[in-house]
């Protein structure tokens, strides 16, 4: 198998990473930015988990009949990272809800325009 095909998980990772980061930068809608951020974080899950799997490997169960084990540690790490990601997304959405209450909009340019009249002295 060529290096390209055998490392396809890395290509997916890079694609997700770039797509997520692009959405964060290019979109002005605060919810869409958070969606991009989530995709960006998800790419990391794949980066960790994919190399932990050995083809033909099993969960690490001590037994005579299993010889090849997959590494369980990346899964555990990513469970933690998923929790962190959910907490971040939840907090981000909660802040967006409060921004909508305060400004009546979730478009970045409209929000910035709404504050433009206020001096920085306040």
């Amino acid at each position, binding site marked *: 198998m060529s290096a390209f095909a055998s490392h396809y998980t890395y290509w997916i990772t890079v694609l997700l990473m770039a797509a997520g980061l692009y959405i964060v930068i290019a979109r002005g809608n605060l919810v869409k930015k958070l969606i991009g951020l989530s995709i960006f974080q998800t790419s*990391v899950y794949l980066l960790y988990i994919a190399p932990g799997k050995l083809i033909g490997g099993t969960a690490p169960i001590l037994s005579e009949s299993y010889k090849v084990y997959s590494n369980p540690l990346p899964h555990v790490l990513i469970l933690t990272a998923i929790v962190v990601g959910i907490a*971040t997304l939840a907090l981000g959405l909660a802040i967006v809800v409060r921004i909508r209450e305060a400004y009546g909009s979730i478009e970045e340019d409209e929000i910035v325009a709404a504050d433009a009249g206020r001096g920085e002295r306040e």
Partner: protein
Amino acid sequence: MIAEHLPALQVVVPLAAAPLIVLLRHPGIAWALAVAASVFAFGASVALALEVARTGVISYAMGNWPPPWGIEYRVDALSAFVLVLVSAIGALVAPYAWRSVAAELPRAQHYLFYAVYCLCLAGLLGMTITGDAFNLFVFMEIASLSMYVLIALGRDRRALLASYQYLVLGTIGATFYVIGVGLLYLATGTLNIADLAARLPQIGGTRPVLAALSFITVGVSLKLALFPLHLWLPNAYAYAPSAATALLAATATKVSVYVLLRFYFTVFGAALVVDALPVSEILIGLSIAAVVTASLVALWQANLKRLLAYSSVAQIGYITLGVGLATRDGLTAAVVHLFNHGITKGALFLLVGGIALRAGGVGFERLQGLARTMPLTCLGVTLAGLSLIGVPGTAGFISKWYLVLGALEAGHWWLAGLVVLTSLIAVAYVWRFVEAAYLSEPPAGKASAGEAPWSMLVVSWALVAACIWFGFDTSFTVGGAQRAALLMLGGAP
């Protein structure tokens, strides 16, 4: 028995205080618990620092799982020093917060403030004490998420936008960091920092290792607000509640600097980072840009809090300049300034919180003639301002002195000149406060309500006194920083 578990308790006590506060809800009890937890953390960190000074390195196996399999907590000369700074600021801001939070937040939110305050402190202490790269990421996120909440608690609606922007940029930074750690894990098969440091030299500067170094550098630079990745900082500091600003400004970016130092000098090693790659040149270039542009921008701010926030970006530039020099004196300067700037900015933001409470805002037009109604506060701001400039006899001077020594040691005499020149810009922006407070007439018909509450003044002045004290007695700051610099450059701990 208890003493042996201090490294764990250091983090666990503030962490456990947070849910307890949420359960009990009463503002008074919440405050008392937050003060108790942060004072305990300070006591623990002092005890750990004394122990480290006596025995070298403390290694604590979490849950009795021996490292590198279990998570290791590791205290050495560098982390003990940063722990003392973070927990000292934590223990000072908590008692201060009582009056400040009562004035700035609705009563129903008080317990939430204290709960998040404890979480933030636990996260920052955890980042400093842990010896595991992935565990560091988790603590980084605990600290960051609680900071976003602290900022969003600000009264102004722009606090929400500031918090959102910080959330997006902070998450990108943390994710970059965790990508870097993932690449290191793929390359070495370990997450323990000491273990990483032992295994990395065997694989050398291969491409995954270099990619990991780049990801970690960019991610942590976002967190520590290295120019030009500082854009989240001014709004976050300006609109957060006063007590939160003081905690963030004095500790959050400093702990990120610690993470950068830890990865550069412990994990990757000076041989790869400084000798083989142009990291020094990049850091020095960005630091100069930070110091010059942020100082100039600070000059034109119409609001004292924003002025100090931009000044923070500039002062972080001095710290990273020391890191970039990567000589013994340069690193000493970085670590000393990390501490000195922490206490100086802490003092300034605490005093500004008093002004916000009594004058109703911190725009410069409200500061006119303030010295007549708030003499102690204004004197404090002026003295801490002198430390910000680096006038001899203040803590700031000690940092600048070692920075100049470090620049000369590295053969960059022009850098030494630049450090002195840019301090002159700091003179100009501190003078703006002095001019407004001492030399202007108070606006007619509007009297400020007098001096800040004593509980806030005592705490603020404790830090102002520290700014002066550490300008004369440098045995703790410079001594600690020199031991840390030796440790980073591979000498005896």
